[in-house]
């Protein structure tokens, strides 16, 4: 056994580490090998996808266009119908039509005798406003209980009735 000094051991260790570092690492296997064929395939797939998307989009737009046309047609038809109905209303509002209906269907007769009656407006008294009852406040537990049972409550703004004058 040879005896190594401390310096020699350290030198040997450094050499081993350098040798280990210099030793070539086995190359890792790539996940995708990009060669010419792959590029073509990717391009083809991309083009196909874009094409499909374009077709879908075009189809959707066309469909929307047809929907829009259909809705416009429906709106036009509804507008026409409204016009016809408004015309019918106007025709029935015609005083001649009203008179015909009144006399022939409802048995009314033209006014022959009438009198103007002079009515005097009775004086309005100042009415006393009934006192507004204080609403009872619920406890927290009562409110929880009502909420659990589904009991609803309605609140209204309390109106100060005294601000309104009744009569002169």
């Amino acid at each position: 056994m040879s005896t190594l000094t401390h310096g020699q051991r350290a030198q040997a260790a450094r050499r081993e580490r350098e040798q280990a570092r210099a030793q070539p690492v086995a190359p890792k296997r790539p996940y995708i090998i990009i060669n010419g064929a792959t590029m073509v395939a990717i391009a083809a797939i991309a083009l196909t996808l874009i094409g499909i998307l374009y077709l879908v989009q075009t189809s959707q737009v066309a469909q929307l266009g047809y929907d829009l046309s259909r809705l416009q047609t429906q709106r036009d038809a509804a507008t026409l119908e409204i016009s016809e109905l408004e015309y019918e209303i106007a025709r029935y509002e015609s005083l001649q039509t009203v008179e015909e209906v009144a006399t022939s269907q409802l048995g009314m007769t033209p006014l022959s005798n009438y009198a103007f009656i002079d009515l005097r407006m009775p004086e309005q008294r100042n009415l006393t406003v009934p006192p507004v009852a204080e609403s009872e406040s619920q406890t927290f537990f009562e409110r929880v209980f009502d909420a659990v049972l589904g009991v609803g409550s309605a609140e209204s703004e309390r109106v100060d009735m005294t601000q309104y004058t009744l009569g002169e």
Partner: protein
Amino acid sequence: MDAVNDIPRSRIIILLVAFILFSMAVGYRVFSFQIVHGLDLTEQAQQFRFREDVVPAERGDILDRRGRKLATNVPADRISVIVHQLDDPGDTARELAQIINRDEGEILEAISHPDREWVVLQRRLSPEASQQIKSLDMDGIVLDPEPRRTYPMGNFASQVLGFVNFDYEGSYGVEGAYHSLIAGEPGHLIGERDGAGNVIALGHSTWDPAQDGADLVLSIDSSVQRIVEEVLRETIEDMDAAGGTIIVQNPNTGAILGMASHPGYDPNEFNQVQDAQLFGNPAISNVYEPGSTMKALVMAIGLETGAVAADTVHPGGPYRELPGGERVYNATLMDFGPESMTEVLVHSSNVGAMYVAEQLGEDDLYRGLTAFGFGDQTGIDLSGEESGLFPLPGDPNWYLTNLYTNSFGQGMAVTPLQLINAISAVGNGGQLLTPYLVEEIRHPDGKVEQTEPEVIRDVISPETAQAVNQMMTTTVDSAQRVYGVPGYQIAAKTGTAQIPGIDGGYEPGATIGSIVGFGPSDDPQFSVIVKIDRPQESQWGERAAGPAFQEIFEELFLLYGIPPSDPDQVR
């Protein structure tokens, strides 16, 4: 290889030549399409693909002051024929003739014309006719909707409204006068189209939207209009008259509440009217000699200028001799004796009116009558208004006689509207107002224009107006049973005017009976003029027009809830 070698060479050459010829033909067509006609065809394709359509604006409605529609639009079909698609033109003509009420031969001729590909057979079909045609389900028949102007109340207020012709242009009346406002502005759509010519909803398009027309709210009250039309129709029947006119005006604003003339027409069927004169509005375009109705205005001028006072008494007599020696008599040659100015109106004295004119003199009389608006249009918002025939001193057709005859409404001609507008000035305290029919314009953007009453000028003072009001009220009170309304005080003046003939004189026995006035006297709310042309039952205004005047006021007071001043007198 042997088989190929067996094919005769000539056959190959023939095939080659045929192929070359075919290629040349195709090449020629390609060259022709692309190079020779390329630009034209491109343009045609663009035109087809991006065709411009006019988008019609919706015409505004016309409403009365109560909001009832007097004119509106409804869709109506137009029937057209694509000639080359017809299976049997004869059969088509026969089927359609019954539905659209046209002659079968006429239709057959139209759809058999060799130069025509597309024929419009009828426009504005009725809904029933459209339905019948649809049920036929014939090839080559096309129904296109187009707007149709309709008047839901038929011949109601036809001369006020006018009509819309086949080109959708307003003619006569409010439709004509306000056409530019209610027609709107058509829009334009340049859109990308599919092979069938339909606009591609999401394609490229340029859209210039149509501006719809404004709605008009008239001052006409359809209830008043109905009263006026009914009373006029009954009066013309009762009096066996040739025609007539009634106007109801609010004297405080100038608004026309009712305006009717007989005969009228149905604007829905304007194309059936034979006499185009019916389209005019006689209330503003027909002039007549107003007769004694003018005396109230002459009296107002006399009082205003101080030429006479209410208690002035003139000597009276059955006639007055004019400077030329001609004698002008009272009606029925009556001698009323000395008359106060009030009695001049009560008796409708020609001699008294001539006295006032003489006291006034030319300058004051004609200045006053001109101030009342005679000789000039009233300015109503309708087209076709006449200004009347009103010769003034200095005009070639004015003679001194006119000074006297004009005082009782002869030798001059006015429109009914001029006269009622002048009388309204007396009723409202002396202001001449511009009459109007359109009270409100509702623009499609929500903006609303209100018509404000417009004072043309102060004609007489309130005191003079009150004095004349009192005189006219006394006139009505003296003839209460004929044209007064029991329980109410009304101011009015009747008139019976002769009708000028062709030879320069007057037609014997032919008159125009009229009455004009306002009420209630203490707070005038309505002015009314009734004019009856050539009444046969009675030639006098009091009898021919008075009952109609009375009935209209009774109905107006009832309609507007105006209580009587003397309830005990109400029958």
